[in-house]
């Protein structure tokens, strides 16, 4: 039952990514050129509702569908890893025109070449794992 709910959320996510064109390389390029409000509108409106909803859940101690308390895990404190890792991610996001979620969506949409990006992303994650202890965080 829970597994099915994850599957349906994933399907819903995939459809929204495709239909909103957030999975389009062109939309990412256009966003970084500041020539359209589209991507900023998507992220901005998701964020406004996100901030509101998270506050509501926290203030009212709202429970999950399964009656469990909802925990928000704070991110570890730090600066270097977030700015450097963020910049590296941003370079890839703009070059491949896709972030991890849309990669999966595009596989389903039938773009074989996106598998190269996925392979690169898995390799990149592996390289990070190998170097993790040597990198400043």
């Amino acid at each position, binding site marked *: 039952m*829970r*597994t099915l709910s*994850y599957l349906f*959320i*994933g*399907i*819903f*996510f*995939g459809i*929204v990514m495709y239909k*909103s*064109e*957030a999975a*389009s*390389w*062109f939309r990412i*390029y256009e966003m*970084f*050129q500041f*020539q*359209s409000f589209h991507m*900023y509108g*998507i992220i*901005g409106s*998701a*964020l406004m509702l996100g901030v509101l909803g*998270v506050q509501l859940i926290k203030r009212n101690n709202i429970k999950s*569908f399964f009656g469990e308390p909802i925990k928000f895990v704070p*991110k570890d404190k*730090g600066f270097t*890893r*977030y700015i*450097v*890792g*963020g*910049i590296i*991610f941003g370079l*890839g*996001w*703009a*070059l491949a*025109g896709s*972030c*991890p*979620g849309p990669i*999966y969506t595009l*596989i*389903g*949409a039938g*773009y074989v*070449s996106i598998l*190269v990006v*996925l392979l*690169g*992303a898995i*390799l*990149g*994650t592996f390289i*990070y794992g190998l170097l*993790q202890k040597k990198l400043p965080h």
Partner: protein
Amino acid sequence: MEWIFEPWPWYVAGPLIALIMFLLIFVGKQFGMSSNLRTMCTMCGADNAADFFNFDWKAQRWNLVVVVGAVIGGFIGAHFLTNDAAVAINPETIATLQDLGFSSAGNAYLPDELFSIDALLNMKSLAILLIGGLLIGFGARYAGGCTSGHAISGLSNLQLPSLIAVIGFFIGGLFMIHVLFPLIF
């Protein structure tokens, strides 16, 4: 119902993304797509190579199910919910891209110059896709999250580290588009 087959505007897509995040929160999980890449590494045996991959990946199986769903969703979106996949980006953006050699700008969902089957046989476009992927995977794990984990989940929870990461995403993206693209293309 005709609107379903058109591109969905931001004021539909943004709230739906927030809804997806809350659905995951309400089933006791969190919205973050890049951590799956670590899980896939571990499944391939990376835990023998580095401690970073030595974790209980089976506890992350739920997120792999989300991934399978995202693939199915992409299939449904592209094949059943779309008549014309061409992305109507700003005409100025189209002109800039055509100057860079992207003649498919304005007529396709992804640029043929990078994503067509023919482009797979071209060393340059193959290298661009692979390097793009490497940067995405490495950067996302270094920063501890990607667009979904930081820009949506983290910022919704008012996390300062997520704000730093998102600023990083934009520094990197702007540098790529404005400084490196003219050199690459």
